[in-house]
């Protein structure tokens, strides 16, 4: 394995053909027309390789790891899985989560958020809330279209945030694949 230092091949002087402008313009046209005809062929045959996506008619399929806006996972009975422990509130770097805990007397978990507000205008989609959650109750969805006309509409309450588990399967599947991973014992730094 080696690192070499190389000097870049600088064009000392352009050839007279290149200095004539016209041949280089034709060369440029050749490159761009190649792209054009390839795209046209793809369009005509229905196997378009064009890079542009005709949003909103067409949508991009995000990767499994994609982090969209954070949402709350709803249990089968419609209540949030969240037990209002407040860890996401602690972990959030922008302080965009506000939780008011409440009681749930006739349930095994006993605690539930009375209100759960996320200020999407502040949220920076970093995913630390999801990483810190010990209940798999807040996850990053695949939703990104959250534009509104007012800032107040960016305050998402519990009711807006609850999403049934079935709709979040892809994200939960992605997260669960990571759960079993082992960790390496902490090795001291060399020379320390």
């Amino acid at each position, binding site marked *: 394995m080696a*690192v070499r230092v*190389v000097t870049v*091949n600088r064009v000392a002087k352009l050839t007279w053909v*290149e200095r004539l402008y016209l041949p280089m313009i034709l060369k440029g046209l050749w490159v761009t027309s190649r792209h054009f005809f390839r795209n046209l062929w793809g369009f005509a045959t229905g196997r378009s390789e064009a890079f542009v996506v005709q949003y909103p008619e067409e949508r991009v399929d995000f990767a499994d790891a994609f982090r969209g806006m954070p949402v709350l996972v709803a249990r089968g009975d419609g209540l949030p899985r969240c037990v209002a422990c407040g860890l996401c509130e602690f972990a959030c770097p922008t302080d965009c989560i506000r939780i008011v805990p409440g009681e749930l007397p006739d349930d095994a978990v006993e605690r539930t958020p009375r209100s759960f507000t996320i200020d999407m205008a502040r949220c920076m989609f970093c995913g630390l809330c999801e990483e810190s959650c010990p209940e798999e109750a807040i996850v*990053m969805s695949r939703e990104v279209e959250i534009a509104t006309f007012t800032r107040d509409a960016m305050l998402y309450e519990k009711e807006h945030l609850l999403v049934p588990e079935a709709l979040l399967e892809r994200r939960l599947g992605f997260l669960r694949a990571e759960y079993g991973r082992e960790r*390496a014992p902490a090795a001291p*730094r060399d020379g320390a």
Partner: protein
Amino acid sequence: MSTGPRLRLPGERKDGAQPDLHAEHQILNMGPSHPATHGTVKFLIELDGESIVDLDVQVGYVHRGFEKECESRSWYQCIPYTDRLNYNSAILCNLGFCMAVEKLLEIETPERCQWLRVLAGEISRLGDHLTRCGASCLELQAMTPFLYGIEARELVWDLQEMLCGARVTTNYVRIGGVKHDLPEGFAAAAGDLLAKVRSLLRDFDAVVTRNRIFVDRLKDTGVLSKEDCIRHAVTGPVLRAAGVPLDLRKDEPYLVYDQLDFDVPVGTVGDNYDRYLVCVEEMQQSLRIVEQCVDRLGALGPGPVDVDDPRVRWPAKGRVFEGMEELIQQFKSVTEGPKVPAGEGYLAIESANGELGFYLVSDGSQRPVKVRCRPPSFLNLQPLPLMVRGAMLADLIPTFDFLNMIGGECDR
């Protein structure tokens, strides 16, 4: 003195008053938001006709108080903030910060993690250079190469999204590890990407590199000599274009760069054309490194990517759900955050723009006392007046573009 009639100068009035040609310098405000500059910065230009006499660069329009904000957050919460330093190569900023914290904590990350970090960092560098070269072409009125460059960058960002979960603000590297391992099918996607980016770079090269207009605009403009670069602590491709082979990946190898095979391109003159060529060559080298990393990660097989130290890294999620001990640890780690031993440390990595250093001071608590980011853009921008003094106003555009000043990183 003769009082006879003489020919009037162009513009001279009949009463003999002298025309005001080139007598007075003109002050021109360019920016802070100008279509021909990428980056929010204001130039106060003193012009003599079309030549630049002097230039005052005014930065600070994107100042968000990064350091102040970090001082009031836990070490862990600073990581997403480092994303916002450089939108083009967020992973490298994550990496620099986390490695600096690891230096204070005196821990070493597992081998697989180090390869992953190099892989992610090089993908990021690729995106940065593509933006630099593509956008510079756009600002020189060449729309097509810009589209090819940005298409390649989108492909790079697709890969970044697959790996990190976000295209721009990646938040991938963690103190003592990375967020997660390679997703399934990454090697195949990376192979696809490499082929496509190489083909786009070939098209880019065919349209631009030997095009007379492009060469005329770049050659011998914005020259910064080796000595001036060193005096101004300029680093990265700008320094290498001036012929100084300083690359921290080679000179102070961190992570696994000493096990990799790559070239460090250097220029000879230090003008914009050399900067362009150095960047293009560095992209080829980054592609090579990505290839080697993917191969090596495949050969290494599954393994840990985080250190198992609750002092540093939040416990593995699977165990938090099952074990009481880990659950308590999770609560402790999140609410208290990692406590970094008192001390100070400076760690620099080679980012796409040059030496990205983090100087951290800790008093042993969960919050940093000082998070200083040594921004390569800021220092690379400083000698700009030196580069364009005496040049035409139009030469300012390519010179500024190839410095690749990133507002977020320059102004913090």
